[in-house]
């Protein structure tokens, strides 16, 4: 099975990084989260209800919808915060944050469980520094429009209705969904990032991860 890979790219000002990333990641997760599953004895299940809320950005002329789940929001904010710290403050730079949806495949001892991605969203971020308030104001509006276009792109991809993991049985649900949250159930996901400094050399956590994965086998 091939992993579906989608790339998005945005150029933002330093203080817009958080909100831009939150907007896009939450939009994707809105589509990739369901209500909590409640399995019944006959093998059927019922699904909880997903609430939504509007979020207005402070530094961008943009509003987006996210799942009403503080736990999920905290997890995403934490990841975005780490990404922003890694990008550094006040410096021009490029980075990429990836949201990967995967399934776990149980392997026999001594091998650890495999994580098989089925959809990867890569968001390339280009951070610019602006000289004056007028440029910042124009940037607010422009980035807002760009994010709108990205949301339309995301929706387009999702509505192609390509591969989605089969709905799991009760014993398999943890291999497909993240069941640790109290109120919603997103597909299993992980967020990683890599930073490119202005010279273009790659200082990446991905390299480290690759090595780790290879050694883990």
């Amino acid at each position, binding site marked *: 099975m091939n992993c579906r890979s989608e790339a998005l790219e945005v150029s933002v000002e330093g203080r817009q990084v958080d909100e831009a990333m939150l907007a896009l990641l939450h939009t994707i997760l809105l589509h990739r989260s*369901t209500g909590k599953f409640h399995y019944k004895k006959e093998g059927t299940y*019922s699904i*909880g209800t997903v*609430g939504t809320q509007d979020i207005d950005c402070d530094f961008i002329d943009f*509003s*987006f919808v996210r799942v009403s789940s503080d736990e999920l929001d905290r997890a995403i904010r934490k990841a975005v915060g780490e990404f922003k710290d890694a990008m550094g403050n006040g410096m021009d730079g490029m980075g990429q944050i990836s949201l990967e949806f995967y399934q776990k495949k149980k392997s026999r001892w001594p091998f650890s469980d495999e994580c098989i991605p089925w959809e990867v969203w890569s968001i390339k971020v280009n951070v610019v520094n602006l000289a004056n308030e007028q440029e910042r104001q124009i940037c607010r509006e422009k980035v807002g429009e760009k994010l709108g276009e990205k949301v339309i792109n995301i*929706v387009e991809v999702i509505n192609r209705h390509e591969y989605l993991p089969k709905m799991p049985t009760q014993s398999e649900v943890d291999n497909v969904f993240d069941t640790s949250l109290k109120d919603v159930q997103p597909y299993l996901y992980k967020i990683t990032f890599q930073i490119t400094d202005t010279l273009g050399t790659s200082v990446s956590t991905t390299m480290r991860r690759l090595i780790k994965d290879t050694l883990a086998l």
Partner: protein
Amino acid sequence: MDSDLSPQDKKDLDKFIKFFALKTVQVIVQARLGEKVCTRSLSSPTGSDWFNLAIKDIPEVTHESKKALAGQLPGIERSMCVEISLKTSEGDSMELETWCLEMNEKCDKDIKVSYTVYNRMSLLLKSLLAITRVTPAYKLSRKQGHDYVILYRIYFGEVQLTGLGEGFQTVRVGVVGTPIGTITLSCAYRTNLAFMSTRAPGEDEGAYNGVEDSQEVCTTSFSTSPPSQMGVPGKEGGVPQQVPVQPCHGAQAEHRRVSSCPPADHVPATPSTKHPTSSRSVGVKSGSPCGVLETTFTRKVGAFVNKPGTQVTTASLDLPFAAFAPRAYDLEENDPMVQPPESSATSSPLQGSLHSQGSGESGGPAQDDFVMVDFKPAFSKDDLLPMDLGTFYREFQNPPQLTSLTIDVSSQSMAEDLDSLPEKLAVYEKNIDEFDAFVDTLQ
């Protein structure tokens, strides 16, 4: 060819399509009410949340949707459309977007109705939630208030896009294949926001400013809008956007109340002249639709305003910017430096809010025994320059009246001014070399 579909599946599918249509309309209308939507996630299903999504049902909207459907379902060549339009308090209106729920003949026979179709409809509603915040009408709807309101109209049958002006854009929200056809949801939105009004183009802004004039008195008290908001109206081509995101809280609460009140209290829809055959409903924002069209409106009094506002009628707005012109009964013995004429309170939200900070001296027009309070702006040093910040504020808060605004018989009329323009232009063209030399010295 429904023969492959079991009766139970057919029944389920019809039910799904019906509720999908109703929920679609709810999402669209709620996204245009001007408020942030927030619903809670519930880990245990209540059994009443269709498509596993918490979407509230506003009774009036459901009622209008069912009225438009009239017992039918969206199907092939039977589209369900939600038209969103903007209506100013002057009575001008403009269609902003049309959301279309259509069905085409492409069938997906193998798809499981109770499972896949249902889940895909849920996904499509999520996409709709996301896309409704992205089209231009969302920002307009968040800023609606006294100057304009957003209205919706639901109709069934053929899609009508002619009211969207030239160059409208279309965005596809998504599709769901079913055994009886493919459901598509899309939005066509206007890109040309220039207002079509009976007034001459040059006077449009003036008229809107006239409308805003009555609002600035209360909005300035609350205003924390950045100066950038002034630049936007030009972009929107005359659609007033100077009302900040937080307009009069009192008024907003009033509108909200109307939207949540039960149908019995709601004023019935005004008869429509445009589309007599389809059900028309006035947007939930206006308590009395007729009120929006009235030609007199009273200024609402905001916090810190001493004197209740005066009545402004559209009759007095014949001249462009006429509302800015000082009125005879308002002028008493005023020191223009300390007693600012009305017009200065309306020139910009930012200036107005500064105005309200000097509450001691700017308590509105016509105060006989005012006390001169030395206005010390925050962080100002009062010793350095002859022109300190406070003096600067005082001087420039009250600029002299524009000569063209004085309704003075002896002054030149606008028409005469315009006639003399070609002559003036000719003179300037002759001296163009002088001007170029001057510009060079500046560089």
